[in-house]
Each structure stands twice: as structure tokens, then as C-alpha cells.
């Protein structure tokens, strides 16, 4: 069975084992409320992680997602406090913030051939600054964190039945993106770009276009997450989401999308985010020092990746052996 499937099953298995243990230790774990907030937490990161997965598939990286969240949130509160444009109109507009940021990243990456990491790091700083600049100020010029009351907007933080809307959107987005990646030419082109850019170009793929696309999509996802975050918190702060990129990367990596590009898919990321959320929630539940959390997460990342690398080497070794065996049998007949 393919590596990816196996590791995924193992991860899911672990997920339920840990979940089981937790529900034993802490009665409050398996309550509807807790599960729903756990999902809400996961979805919050997950939406961003989906976009980030595409970036990783092109063997790139996007450090600017956190700052995009901040800027988008600021754009929204500006609309809310200075205009009477209805939420359903300006929210789509504010989603363009992320797309624009992605465009910016894509431009510097493709046209100047600059390393993705440093470009997005730079735009991270720029966007963080912009967020502060455009933040809503009070009479004395101090940034005031607007308390959002627009019911439509707050609706995004709400639930359908017991399930938070963000969760539903997350799952929906996951389905769509997965479908998109597997069932459209653009999707396959993105995979090709990440796996072997030169080969892709030989086959007539415009790799630059793929790169532009993934960064714009990643920005879009971050913006989307920003809407839900601010709706849930009923406010928007210029430092929203900054620093959250590490969480996202962790989720995607645990989900099994490697940095080498060309492979990985959305389901892995979904599992990764759920797993991460579970760990965090669990550590809160156990009532042990919250500082264990980063240690555990850091540990998990290392273990998961090391195991991945090992397994990959192991599998390749097997197939090579198989081929060699065939060659040997052939030689025996041919060689003098």
C-alpha cells in the first residue's frame, strides 16, 4: 500500500487512540461543546493550511499568511466602522486583500527569481505594518479595537445546529480544493510544477502561472480565515494571526506534505490540523503545565518527519532491490 495511505491510517489511528485516552481522563472531553470548539479551532488553522498546502506542493513557502490575516481583519473593520456597505458585499472584497498579497509574492518570486522564504518574510513585515497603519483609530489617534456588532458579520462566527460555520466552510473548502487539485488541469499543472519544473516546462506548462496561482490562493485562504477569526472574537486586532504561520506549517507537515514539492494533498492537511488541535485541546484538558504543549508539538513534528524520511528510503530501497534482482537474473544468462 502506498506510503501516504499507510502513514495517514496510522495518524488517524493515533488520533482516535489519543482521543479515547483523553475522554477517559477528562469527562469534559467528549462533550458536544468541547468537540465543536476543537473542530472550530482546527478549522481556523485548517482553512489557512489548505492554501499553504498548495504552496508546499510547488516546493515553495509562504511566511506572510499570518500578516495577511491581520490586514484582512483591519480591512473588514474599516468597512464596518466607516461605511454602510453590507457585510455580504464587503467581505468578498476584503478577501481580495489576500489575493493581492499573493500576487505581490508571486511577482517577486517569479520575476526576480528570489527565494520564496525571504520574499514572503519581507511581505510579512510590510503587511504587518499596513495592518497597524489602517487600523481604526480613536479621537486621540490610538488604535481602538472595534467591537463588531453587525449581525450579518457576526453570523460567520455562529453555528448551524451544533456545528460552527467555520467548520462547515473548512470541510467544504477542503473538498473543493482536493477536487480542484485532482480534477482540473491547473491542479495537475501545480503538481507538475512542484515535482519537476523543467519537465513541466518541457511539457508546455507555464510554471510561473502555477506559482502565481498558489500564492494568491494561499493569501485568499488566509483572508477567509481572518473573517471567521474576527467574527468569532467580535473584534479585530492588528496583531491577529501574526506568528500563526508556525502552527499552520506544523499542521501541514504533520499531515504529510513534504517540503520537496510535487506531492501531498488536502486530506493529509485536514488530518494534520485535526491532530494538532487534538493535541492542544488534550494538553489543556490534562491540566498539566501548558508549556508542555510546544515541547510535545515540536517533538511530534520531528518524529513524524524522521519516520517519513526513513519509510521513504526504506520503500525506495525495496523497489530498487526488486529491479536489481531482475537485472541479476538477466545478467546470469548474458554475461560471459
Amino acid at each position: 500500500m502506498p506510503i501516504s495511505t499507510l502513514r495517514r491510517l496510522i495518524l488517524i489511528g493515533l488520533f482516535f487512540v489519543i482521543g479515547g485516552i483523553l475522554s477517559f481522563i477528562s469527562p469534559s472531553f467528549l462533550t458536544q461543546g468541547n468537540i465543536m470548539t476543537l473542530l472550530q479551532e482546527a478549522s481556523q488553522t485548517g482553512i489557512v493550511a489548505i492554501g499553504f498546502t498548495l504552496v508546499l506542493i510547488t516546493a515553495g513557502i509562504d511566511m506572510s499568511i499570518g500578516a495577511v490575516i491581520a490586514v484582512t481583519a483591519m480591512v473588514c473593520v474599516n468597512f464596518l466602522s466607516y461605511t454602510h456597505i453590507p457585510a455580504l458585499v464587503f467581505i468578498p472584497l476584503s478577501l481580495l486583500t489576500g489575493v493581492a498579497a499573493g500576487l505581490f509574492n508571486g511577482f517577486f518570486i517569479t520575476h526576480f527569481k528570489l527565494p520564496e522564504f525571504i520574499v514572503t518574510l519581507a511581505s510579512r513585515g510590510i503587511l504587518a505594518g499596513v495592518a497597524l497603519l489602517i487600523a481604526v483609530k480613536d479621537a486621540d489617534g490610538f488604535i481602538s479595537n472595534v467591537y463588531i456588532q453587525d449581525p450579518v458579520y457576526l453570523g460567520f462566527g455562529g453555528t448551524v445546529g451544533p456545528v460552527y460555520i467555520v467548520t462547515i466552510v473548512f470541510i467544504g473548502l477542503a473538498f473543493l480544493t482536493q477536487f480542484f487539485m485532482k480534477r482540473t488541469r491547473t491542479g495537475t499543472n501545480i503538481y507538475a510544477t512542484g515535482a519537476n519544473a523543467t519537465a513541466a516546462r518541457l511539457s508546455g506548462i507555464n510554471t510561473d502561472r502555477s506559482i502565481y496561482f498558489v500564492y494568491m490562493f494561499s493569501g485568499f485562504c488566509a483572508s477567509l480565515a481572518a473573517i471567521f477569526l474576527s467574527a468569532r472574537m467580535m473584534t479585530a486586532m492588528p496583531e491577529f494571526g501574526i506568528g500563526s504561520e508556525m502552527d499552520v506549517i506544523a499542521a501541514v507537515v504533520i499531515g504529510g506534505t513534504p517540503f520537496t514539492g510535487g506531492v501531498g494533498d488536502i486530506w493529509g492537511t485536514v488530518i494534520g490540523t485535526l491532530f494538532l488541535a487534538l493535541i492542544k485541546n488534550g494538553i489543556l484538558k490534562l491540566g498539566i503545565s501548558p508549556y508542555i504543549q510546544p515541547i510535545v508539538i515540536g517533538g511530534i513534528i520531528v518524529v513524524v518527519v524522521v519516520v517519513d524520511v526513513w519509510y521513504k528510503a526504506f520503500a525506495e530501497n525495496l523497489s530498487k532491490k526488486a529491479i536489481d534482482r531482475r537485472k541479476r537474473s538477466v545478467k546470469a544468462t548474458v554475461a560471459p
Partner: protein
Amino acid sequence: MSDQAAESDLLLVCRTITKSYNGPVVLSDVDFSMKRGEVHALVGENGAGKSTLIKIITGVTNRNSGEMLFEGTAIGIEHSKVASQSLGIAVIYQELSLIHGMTVAQNLFLTKEPRFRAAPFIDIGRMNSLAQALIDRYGFELKATDIIDGLSIAQRQTVEILKALNSRASLIIMDEPTSSLTSSESAQLFGIIRRLKAEGIGVLYISHRMEEVYDLSDRVTVLRDGHNVAVLEKEQINPAEIIRLMIGRRLEERDALHTMCRSNAEVVLDVRNLCSENRFNGISFQLHAGEILGIGGLVGSGRTEIVRALYGIDRFDSGSIAYLGKPWSPDVASSIRGGFGFIPEERRLQGIMGAISMTGNIGITNLDVTRRHGFVSAKKELALARRAIELLNIKPDNPDIPVGNLSGGNQQKVVVGKWLIRDLKLLIVDEPTVGIDIGAKEELYQTFARLSAAGVSILLVSSDLPELISISTRILVLRQGCIIQEFADGIVTEEDVLRASSGLVEGAVR
């Protein structure tokens, strides 16, 4: 009769193609034609102009003059890779250009995936079935849903071919396709080629393996020094003849150089029954001081693998090596300390550090000379670089220039130079003159001669027969990982070596 063949059933026509890379003329007035559904072998020694002709046909480079028709339509001087692809010319690259992590079907249909009529979504079901149909039509043991990563080289090659077929190519160019295949896999490939032929697809086949050329081709075009020296019809084809044509009159001219002689100087390297699974086996030879031991054989015959093992890059399974009389278990660092030098096969990938200055490139292998308790004396290093530069008169002679900015020849000189300035006992050289101009070649040859005169032993791996024969004092010919023949005395002709490497040996030595 093909000579009077109507234009219509000619797939590709090239007339008086001339190409010169600023200065040396690589192709002069080459006429070349292919019929539909024929397997046409293009043979010639390294540097005869084969690859240039291919590049021109596939639009990688543009010809200086001459005309080209494909399926009756003229192709202008301004030709491009993309254009040639859309025309239906496909190349099976040696460095395979498949997308890993994707299925066979995905690779076959990359950028032209079948989509639903209703919506612009890929119809995976249909894609797989189409792919499978294609595969089955040629009866490969492949599944459309196999992931590329799991396939053997041969299988990947077949996918490449299928890809060409799927893009409705009417001319498929294969450059040394069997170099990395086992003989059974090759046999398989020939089957495919025949089937392509039956489909009416032209196959332009480039190979050094005479027996292949002999079995497969309907016609053979022989290039020599950028001229089309002969086009042989099926019935005229025979390996010996082809080899003669490839080498031409140069036989007599160079005879003097070809005399081999056993050396009885002290033994520098004594290799006994060296074996490495699937690479080489039963390799035994002695290398004497001042000897230039040529290692011939076709690409993939295990030449490179052996020298790598001797230098200590790859491990070997069994056998023993004695260096200067002492048992020797090679690893790179100690090899260098012990007086080895190694000039690898792919300059850009293995030889040079393009971004780094000459001094840096030369310095890195001579740290043991330039260092004093962990510190590097920049002065000594610069001196070494200067010495190398003047020894090989590297141009430009400024040691600060990044090596990446030098010409191929001078890059190679840097690679050689960093060893030359050491007191070497044994220099291992793998394809030293690939892609460098005549002048630089000659200078390198003289250098090697000087070295051997100074008592340095040289192991020379080369596919360039004149080179191999004219420099070596003794030649081992490899075939499928074994030494098939040794030329230790008397006159050796390129013909002999070619025959040996193609397995056309009466009573092969050992």
C-alpha cells in the same frame, strides 16, 4: 530505390544543413532524410555531429543554412522546441522528463487531460481507460494507475515513448536509449520500436551498439567530422563496414600512436577480482607507474562505476585492492592524501563549483597543502591557483573569476589543474574532453603525456575512441561489467575496440 522515393512518403528531409558554433564547423552540407515508418540509425563517433543534427531537427538550436521539410512542410531557420513538438517530433530524453508522484496516465496526458463535455474537469476514469488502451495496444506490462516512482528505468522509458505516441508524434528520436537498460529490457525496447515502425512512425535511432544498429535499422546514416559519409540500405548494413566508415581513413594516419606496450615499471595499483552487485564483477588488473591505462566500453558498461569504486566514492562488495604494494581500502579523503587524483565525468554537476572563484575551486582539494593548524594560507592558495593557471594556461588567467564564467575547456582545465599541482601518483580521468574544443583537448592530451612521463599512472575512461587509443599505453575494454578484452601490445585500431565493446569478439580474452 528509396533515393527516387517521392517527397510524399518522406517524413523528414534535410538538405545541406550547415551549423557552426562561432568558429568550428560542426555540420557542413549534411543531407539527411527519413521515410515514414522506417527505423533509421544515425551513427558516428563522439563529435561527429550527431547530437547537433538532432538539436537542429528538434529546434533546440537553429541551423545556419540549409533547408528542412517535415511531412512536406518547410521548417524555417527560426525553429523552436515547442514548434517541433506540435509538428509531431518527439525526443526520448536520456534524463527522463517524467513527473514523479504522478500516475502513468497523468504523465501521458499532462496538459491535455481529457475533460467532461459538460464541465472543465478532468475525467479521470476516461483518462485512465484511454491510457490503458494505449498501453495495451503495445502490450506493455504497465498499469495506467501505476505511480512513476515505482517503475524501473526501462518502464519509465516506455512511458516516455507512450507519451510521444500519445502526442501523435510521427517521428520519435531515441538517443542512446539502451545505455541504461539490461539486455532483456533492450530486447523489449526493440520490440516496441518494431511496433512503432509497423504503426508507420519513423524512429531516428542513435547508438554506439553495432549489434543493435544491425538488428534494428532499415537504413543507417554515418556521420564523420560533420559530414554525411554514407547512407546504407538494409542489405548493405554490416557492423564492420559501419565501423570502418565511422573511422574513415584516419586509421592509417594515426597508426603510429596506436602501438600498445606492457609496462614493467613498479605496480602502482593491483586490483584483484573486484565485484559490485549489478555494477561490475571479476575486475582484475594491474596499473604500473607511468602507464596510461585506457578503459573502453560503451556507456553503462561499468567503466565509471569501477573508477568511482577505486577512488572510494562507492563501496564494492568483494575483491581486493593493493596500492603501492600495501592493501588499500579506499575512501575519498585517504585516496587524496595517498596521491590519487579524480576528474569526474559530469563537470558541471560533479567537477566545479560554478559560483566560486578558481582559487576556491583549486584550493578545496589542496587544503592539506595550504592549511597550517586549521588555517588556510591565502597566499599559498593563490600561488597554487597561479601555478595551475600557467601550467595549463587557463584563460582568462585571473584566479578570482568564478569558474562558472569560464568556457567549458577552461573549466575542465581548472578541474584538472587542481590535481596537477599536487604530487600525484595516480590520476583517474573520466571522459575528460566531453564538450570542449579541439585546442583545449590537445593541451589536455599533452598534459597527460607529461604526467605519465613523470611517472604518474593514469586511468582513462573515455568513449572517444581516437582519444582512448592515441593516449593510452594499454586498453581494457569492458562489456556488461566485465573486462572482455585487453589490448596490451601491438597496433590497436578503433575498429578493434569498437568490435570488442559491441561484443563482436572472436575468442575474447579472459
